[in-house]
């Protein structure tokens, strides 16, 4: 089976690990080989959380620079920071709603211009899908559902070997009952957003 390598980058607290888990469980139930790895030691301290998800016939659980087929960024500056994982054929999906790093708040850095960021990523990769996932998550009922919005967008691109129904079943069975409806709404909104 063809190998598909997906990187998800996020800021601690954005629910990156849950998104990876949903993909992993969906792959398990669909009998698709999957391996994942994550660096999350500082997740609760506002640092960057990176997950690597490898579908198909590969043993490695991490993804080298330039070798991601898909990059999903939960925060625009983090998407830009992870651009070295991409090559000219990579599909990039990003949320456009910024979470200011504290360094910017205290004047120790400048947040990149969002227009410039999109032009740059769009020019260097196969395709960029960019939208305000936080807004869609709010529409779905909870701003915390950014992860499910982006999961919906990822599935719509058909770059990973999973169908929407397989993922939705997992959201139904494996995410917290109180959030199931919001999560499914968020997934659908993201799925639609990636259609253009």
């Amino acid at each position, binding site marked *: 089976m063809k190998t598909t390598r997906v990187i998800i980058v996020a800021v*601690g607290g954005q629910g990156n690990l849950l998104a*990876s*888990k949903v993909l*992993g*469980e969906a792959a*398990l139930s669909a009998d698709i*080989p*999957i*391996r*994942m*790895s*994550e*660096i*999350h*030691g*500082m997740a*609760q*301290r*506002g*640092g*960057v959380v990176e997950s690597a998800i490898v579908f198909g*016939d*590969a*043993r*490695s*659980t*991490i*993804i*080298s*620079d*330039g*070798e991601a087929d898909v990059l999903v960024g939960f925060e625009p*500056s*983090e998407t*830009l*920071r992870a*651009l*070295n*994982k*991409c*090559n*000219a054929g*990579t599909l990039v999906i990003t949320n456009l709603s910024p979470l*200011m*790093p*504290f*360094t*910017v*708040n*205290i*004047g*120790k*850095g*400048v947040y*990149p*211009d969002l227009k*410039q960021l999109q032009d*740059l990523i769009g020019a*260097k*990769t196969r395709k960029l899908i960019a939208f305000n996932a936080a807004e869609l998550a709010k529409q779905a009922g909870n701003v915390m559902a950014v992860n499910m919005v982006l999961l919906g967008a990822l599935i719509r691109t058909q770059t990973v070997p999973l169908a929407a129904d397989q993922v939705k079943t997992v959201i139904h069975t494996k995410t917290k009952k109180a959030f199931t409806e919001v999560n499914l709404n968020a997934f659908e909104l993201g799925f639609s957003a990636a259609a253009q």
Partner: protein
Amino acid sequence: MHKLLSDQVGEKLLLLGNESIARGAIEGGVAFTSTYPGTPSSEISLNFFQMSQESDLYFEYSTNEKVALETAAAAANCGLRSMAVMKHVGLNVAADTLMTLAYVGVKGGMVVLTADDPYMFSSQNEQDNRYYGKLSGLPVLEPSSVEEAKDLVPYAFDISEQLQEPVIIRTTTRINHSTAVVTLGPMRPRTVKGDFKKDSLNLVTVPAVSRKLHVKLLEHIQQAQGLSEKSHLNFTEGDGAWGIICNGVSHAYVKDAVKDLDIAGKVKILRIGFSHPMPASLVKGFLKGCEKVLVVEEGEPYMEEAVKAFAQEDQNTVEIRGKGETLFSRLYEFDPGMVRERIAAYFGIPYSRPAAVDVADAPEVPARPPTLCAGCSHRATYHAVKKAVEGMETVYPTDIGCYTLGVLPPLSMADFLLCMGSSTGTAGGFSKATDRKVISFIGDSTFFHSGIPGLINAIFNNHDLTLVILDNGTTAMTGHQPHPGVDMGLIHLNGYGRLSIENVVKGLGVPFVVKIKPYRVNKSIEAIREAVNFKGVSVVISEEMCVLYAKSLGLAKGKPFRVTEKCKNHRDCLSIACPAFFVWDGKVNIDPDLCTGCAVCAQICPENAILPVKAEKASA
């Protein structure tokens, strides 16, 4: 029921490497487990902790790794299958025990799990713990995948009982923190009560006994050598004139590289999973017929040195390479692309890596370093210390925990750090060697772990220092594990003791002890000033529960604050680097979703412009 206690043999679960290891221990009939938490090993013991609450598995969070190893060693000497879990540097703490435990040996199977951290994602060094096998004489096993990590544990218990020696399982972060589909196997029944047979001539390591025991250990190493030669963990794959010897996660990268480079017919691979003792005959046989050999291993040239020595014994002059300027580094972790590239270069395979996106013209992305949480009490303590010592020449030895993040500006409250507990020992040295005021910081869990001897030393040798104990009621950094000072009632567990840090410190005879509530800014500054001015050893205990832990227990009562129009933009509030603050349109704001209501900023503001969200609304 805990998912790792499932008796559904053949069931497939998506498991984290650390969950897979914990399940492996259960399948191996482990009865007694102990740990001191440390990334990347912590989830193994978290799962033991959870399972111990719904089964007859014994688990304890021990005071430190040395004690964890000792409790498990005693259990194994009563015939129980036991396992001690720690991060790589934890084995340094336990090394004294380990070295002589190898002489004494065990009756029941015993596994010592050590989790190395190449690249130091969350550690102070990247030492290669395979050398502990060589140093102690104990067998070392290494998994190459999440699935294999499970299966390794019952095997380790079996050979431990066969050899009557503990067995070391050495993992790396990319095993511990990777996830894959694992198939559950049968669970061996647990024997939870053992018996101790007195045998002082073999179990009390006075010199006359140890002289005999060392002979026995060498015999055991010989037997282990035989096991390693035949172990299914050391195997050859493929056939060809090029040889690759690899271990751990490198095996996965090598397998992928052989496929990607399409060289399956040209290369044979020797995977070493039983790495101490190294299988000499197997390696010698592998080297025969090889044109050239590449050793692929993260960390130190542990296998490379052994393989070269074996070749020399055989007078085999085949070229063997591993570490080197154009090959592999001893630094950091490997990745699939790097291994593929180096294999191609070494064997002369035409290959060029697909180009990564050129990011040279991308705007610089502002750093996002991990930081103390909004409302973290450590921030409040650091602010108070800073104010109390204004104008003094200071040195701040620090220790290992969340509070180490205070090293970053603008707090900049950490000057020296070696390892767990080093804040108290080094403080004494600084106080004698300089005229600076020494104020060292240590967390509650780290204090119990290894901070106390340094404090005793300071009292005896009459050092002049102030020790600030940051007591947030939990082991926060690694995920809120208990320690001897916590109230286990808060998590609805009874049958535990509880130590008061204040009593410990006073009992040691510290002449000046004061407790502060760090959210009360001015009172804290005053108390710290007094402690710092005391000549001799003084201790400040700063008590406030970790805000994340309080939230998880439903004990966080704070209400968010906001910056009102009284703000004159002094920006004193920004000096404490709370991530709830942001500057928008030149004005300081507080994110109400992040603010926990600690009110430290409100006490710092010279205009009293920071008020509770509700009160301010009510008065408006």
